[in-house]
């Protein structure tokens, strides 16, 4: 049965205030987006904590609250399994994949494939990747509709009888698009910070409210959880649709690899970090602190719901699919607080969808439009097109929502989708990055052959029976992940051994190896590792090439920097320093230019414009490499 949901005018007001705040914060970032580099990589100006919070906000989609609260209700603490296995890929990402994408200067996986192999690889990867990302936008929009349907629809239909779930989805997608179009990646990161803090806070608060509610009724949380609901890792092979072996292969191996190695939104997010060190720190904070907190946020309503059912505080036939909203509405009685929970649920969707919309625009513009369709136009033209494509991506995401409505449950729909698409793309990435012998022909064969074989396994599941591993009936999506991963590795390795490298193939800086070599390729000269300090200098205009600065000899000594070194230049303020900044190169004084005064740095007018700094102000400088 469904519980009657009540929503007060104050709750509605809180949701409206939240929407207004997000739109204002997001669109305010439009002023910092003047190029495609700003639009896709936020000008590479953000520190570790901003990146980390935005990563978590992206990870937690609206489907997370529904999917994991339902799993928490049905199976207990083990609903957290999907969030606590990303550590498996820590070393491969931090020492292998990340240095490649950061220092090679690529903006996407398809671009990496072209640099590593050829244009054909890029075209195939772009197609598969776009399919993956647009599908993900659709899933997120659909699940938000499912989550909010029982709460908002009766209220909205009382005013507009024609209002349905799809209209709700269009409304949310529209709000998200407004700020993504305005500010691109900068808006995404800033709004994701707000949304990440909100959803973590609300998720943990809901858990606290739930325990308090049980105590108020003389019931304990832990005491009312049946034994199997207390274990964090569930049974090995059963039930078919939720078992630890299947989740290990599907979530731990295939999906986590896809998330950290292939997810275009996450790649752009880490490329937005001002230094490689910040990006790695963000990755560590996300895995070590924020993901474990996030799993409590998304699952705890289900755990509380189970304890309430066992304690007789909820009916036994409560609908697990709506357990998050049911628990929130039952345990929270503070006026306006339920509105904050609705805002957190919406924040989870928007922070995932905005990342994907921006990522779809990045792949569409860089890997298809600019590469194969309309070449050699101005950056302003591509920036305009990126904004139009962002709108288009939201529209396509909305239009595929009805397809997901046909699936039995969200969990199955999500699993079927990711299991089918993920291995054929993530395996070639792993082989390309970690195996020099991997060839272009093998990369294409793996992607095309992998999609075909996984497609066959959906049509004829018996072809993957050999990798069932004793998983009970109903677990096809789990061992399809293993099937896809194994067949893609076999196709990739065998084809590589049977083919030769093409002349166009390149491994320098594109296959894992000493990081110093990657840095030197990135910088174009030997790296300078002398430790230096930070220095605040007054700005002094000069006719210099853009992205170059000149400092007095004593300042260069403090910075421990030489001509050609990469310097980070930012506004001295703590808040403005994040947004008003740029990467520059230290240059020797050109002929005909007056040397900088003591305590000054020479900058060009273009650089001031790019970094949004005032000519009569000052800036903090420090050496990156």
């Amino acid at each position, binding site marked *: 049965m469904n519980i009657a949901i009540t929503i007060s005018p104050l709750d509605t007001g809180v949701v409206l205030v939240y929407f207004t705040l997000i739109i204002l914060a997001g669109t305010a970032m439009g002023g910092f987006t003047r190029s495609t580099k700003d639009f896709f990589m936020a000008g590479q100006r953000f520190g570790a904590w901003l990146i980390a919070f935005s990563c978590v906000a992206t990870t937690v989609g609206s489907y997370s609250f529904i999917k994991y609260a339902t799993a928490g209700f049905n199976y207990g*603490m*083990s609903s957290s*399994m999907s969030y*606590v*296995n990303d*550590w*498996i*890929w*820590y*070393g*491969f*990402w*931090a*020492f*292998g994949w990340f*240095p490649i994408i950061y220092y090679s200067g690529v903006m996407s996986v398809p671009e990496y494939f072209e640099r590593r192999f050829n244009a054909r690889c890029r075209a195939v990867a772009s197609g598969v990747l776009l399919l993956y990302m647009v599908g993900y936008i659709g899933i997120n929009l659909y699940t938000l509709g499912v989550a909010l349907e029982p709460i908002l629809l009766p209220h909205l239909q009382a005013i507009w009888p024609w209002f349905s779930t799809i209209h709700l989805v269009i409304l949310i997608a529209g709000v998200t698009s407004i700020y993504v179009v305005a500010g691109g990646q900068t808006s995404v990161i800033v709004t994701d910070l707000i949304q990440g803090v909100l959803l973590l806070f609300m998720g943990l608060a809901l858990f606290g409210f739930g325990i308090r509610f049980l105590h108020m009724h003389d019931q304990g949380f832990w005491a009312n959880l049946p*034994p*199997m609901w*207390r*274990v*964090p*890792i*569930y*049974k*090995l*092979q*059963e039930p078919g649709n939720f*078992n*630890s*072996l299947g989740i*290990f292969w599907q979530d*731990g*191996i295939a999906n986590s690899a896809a998330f950290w190695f292939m997810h275009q939104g996450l790649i752009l997010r880490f490329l937005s970090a001002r230094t490689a*060190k910040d990006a*790695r720190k963000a990755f*560590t904070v996300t*895995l*070590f602190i924020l993901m*474990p907190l996030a799993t409590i946020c998304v699952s705890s309503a289900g755990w509380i719901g189970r304890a309430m059912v066992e304690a007789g505080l909820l009916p036994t036939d409560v609908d697990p699919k709506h357990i998050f909203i049911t628990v929130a509405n039952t345990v929270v009685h503070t006026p306006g607080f339920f509105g904050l929970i609705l805002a957190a649920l919406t924040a989870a969707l928007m922070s995932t969808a905005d990342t994907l919309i921006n990522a779809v625009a990045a792949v569409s513009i860089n890997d298809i439009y600019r590469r194969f369709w309309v070449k050699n136009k101005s950056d302003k033209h591509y920036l305009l097109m990126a904004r139009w494509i962002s709108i288009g991506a939201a529209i396509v995401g909305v239009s595929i929502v009805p397809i997901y409505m046909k699936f039995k449950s969200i969990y199955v729909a999500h699993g079927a989708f990711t299991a089918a698409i993920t291995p054929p793309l993530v395996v070639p990435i792993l082989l390309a990055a*970690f195996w020099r012998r991997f060839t272009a022909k093998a990369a294409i064969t793996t992607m095309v052959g992998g999609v075909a074989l996984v497609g066959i396994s959906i049509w004829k599941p018996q072809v993957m029976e050999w990798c069932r591993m004793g998983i009970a009936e109903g677990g096809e999506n789990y061992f399809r992940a293993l099937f896809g991963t194994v067949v893609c590795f076999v196709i990739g390795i065998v084809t590589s051994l049977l083919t030769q490298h093409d002349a166009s193939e390149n491994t320098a800086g594109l296959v*894992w*190896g*000493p*990081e*110093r070599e990657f840095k030197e390729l990135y910088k174009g000269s030997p790296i300078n590792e002398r430790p230096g300090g930070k220095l605040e200098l007054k700005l002094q205009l000069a006719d210099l090439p853009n992205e170059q600065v000149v400092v007095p000899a004593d300042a260069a000594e403090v910075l421990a920097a030489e001509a050609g070194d990469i310097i980070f230049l930012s506004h001295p303020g703590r808040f403005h320093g994040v947004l008003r900044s740029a990467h520059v190169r230290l240059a020797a004084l050109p002929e005909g230019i007056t040397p900088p005064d003591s305590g000054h740095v020479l900058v060009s007018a273009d650089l001031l414009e790019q970094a949004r700094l005032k000519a009569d102000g000052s800036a903090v400088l420090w050496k990156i490499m």
Partner: protein
Amino acid sequence: MTDLQSAHMGFLVLFGLGGIISAAGFLLPAYVGALNWSNREHRIMTYWGIAVYLSHLLVLGYMQFVAVNF
């Protein structure tokens, strides 16, 4: 095999098989030179990587093997 024993097997798969893959993520980069022990940033990342693994192992292990009995 009881339900609880089956759950313990799942725990061993995650931290055993997952642990082997995770360890390979440090040993193989060290072999190809991608993890350079003389680089301070790499050393710190390695310590954090081990800390992430151990923290998950200990917290989930506590819940799996101990808390279920209380």
